[in-house]
């Protein structure tokens, strides 16, 4: 089945055709959600941000200059919104850590109906948190490079286009990202 090209759909959306917008959303939502998951590591947050991406596309489509592909534009919006959310989450965690001082950091562990505590789930999440913390600690450019490569499975050339850098610069960036990530992970494993 042949899908209409993006430029045709864009023209129709600008003419007020909502069905074309639904088609664009349908076509790219998985890609946008996976990009957001790469930064936020929470499906719920990623979905919320992905919705905001498409809302922004709907309101700003008239400003889209068509100098790049629509998917490139979508990736850039998704990255910006995800990174903004990451910064917001960091501020919120800082506030919660102050709250912990007053509540003495008391946390209650949920116990399921079968009496099994949620500790196992917490440990599992903590284990996964090691990778996410390591990713979060990368410099922004390296983080974007790694996320687009790993979560979106884009080619180096495509990612360099999205990030507006040369291919050689991107190759060096992704190499440094992987090395830094490995350093942090291995340092953590060897400490345990």
């Amino acid at each position, binding site marked *: 089945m042949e899908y209409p090209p993006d430029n045709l759909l864009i023209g129709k959306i600008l003419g007020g055709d909502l069905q074309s917008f639904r088609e664009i959303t349908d076509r790219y939502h998985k890609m946008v959600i996976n990009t957001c*998951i790469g930064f936020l590591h929470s499906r719920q947050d990623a979905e919320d941000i992905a*919705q905001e991406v498409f809302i922004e596309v709907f309101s700003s489509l008239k400003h889209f200059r068509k100098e790049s592909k629509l998917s490139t534009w979508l990736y850039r919006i998704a990255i910006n919104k995800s990174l903004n959310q990451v910064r917001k989450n960091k501020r919120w965690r800082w506030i919660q850590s102050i709250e912990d001082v007053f509540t003495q950091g008391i946390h209650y562990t949920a116990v399921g109906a079968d009496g099994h505590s949620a500790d196992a789930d917490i440990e599992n999440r903590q284990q996964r948190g090691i990778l996410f913390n390591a990713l979060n600690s990368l410099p922004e450019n390296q983080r974007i490079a790694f996320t687009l490569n790993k979560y979106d499975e884009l080619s180096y050339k495509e990612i360099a286009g999205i990030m507006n850098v040369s291919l050689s610069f991107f190759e060096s960036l992704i190499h440094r990202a992987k090395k830094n990530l490995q350093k942090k992970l291995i340092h953590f494993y060897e400490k345990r």
Partner: protein
Amino acid sequence: MNCIDLKKKLIFLVNGDFSSEEEKIALSHLDMCDRCRTLFEKLKTEWQDIENDKIKGEDKFFVNRVMKRIEAEESKQNSLISLPVIRIVKTVALSLISAAAILTGIILGAKFSIQFTNPAEQGYPETEAFVNEYFLDELQEENIESILFTQNKE
């Protein structure tokens, strides 16, 4: 390949960035080294977590959720009371409440203030007697001054 060399490149092995020859050498080292193999397995698990995080299928209802939010945003913008008006009303209301609070404070303060008066006027005879005994009033000072002036002249 020794442990130090392999540890520097482990992530590239996990990611499949090695050439087939390099991979062969690395895997044969892993067969012999428990420590490196443990690290390799842990990194591989992390990589698998990334794959598990991604959504695989299409979400048929995502589009509906987006359209609902767009409709909600549009109806908010079209509402009679627009956002700037709400902001102005909020600011004015807060200012009026603050002014009323300050005024209330002033009125209450004026009503219940303590009056400070001259104790002598309130009539404290003991104090008056003490003052009269140990301190000269102006009339008494005049006599003493005239005596002193006369003495100096002499």
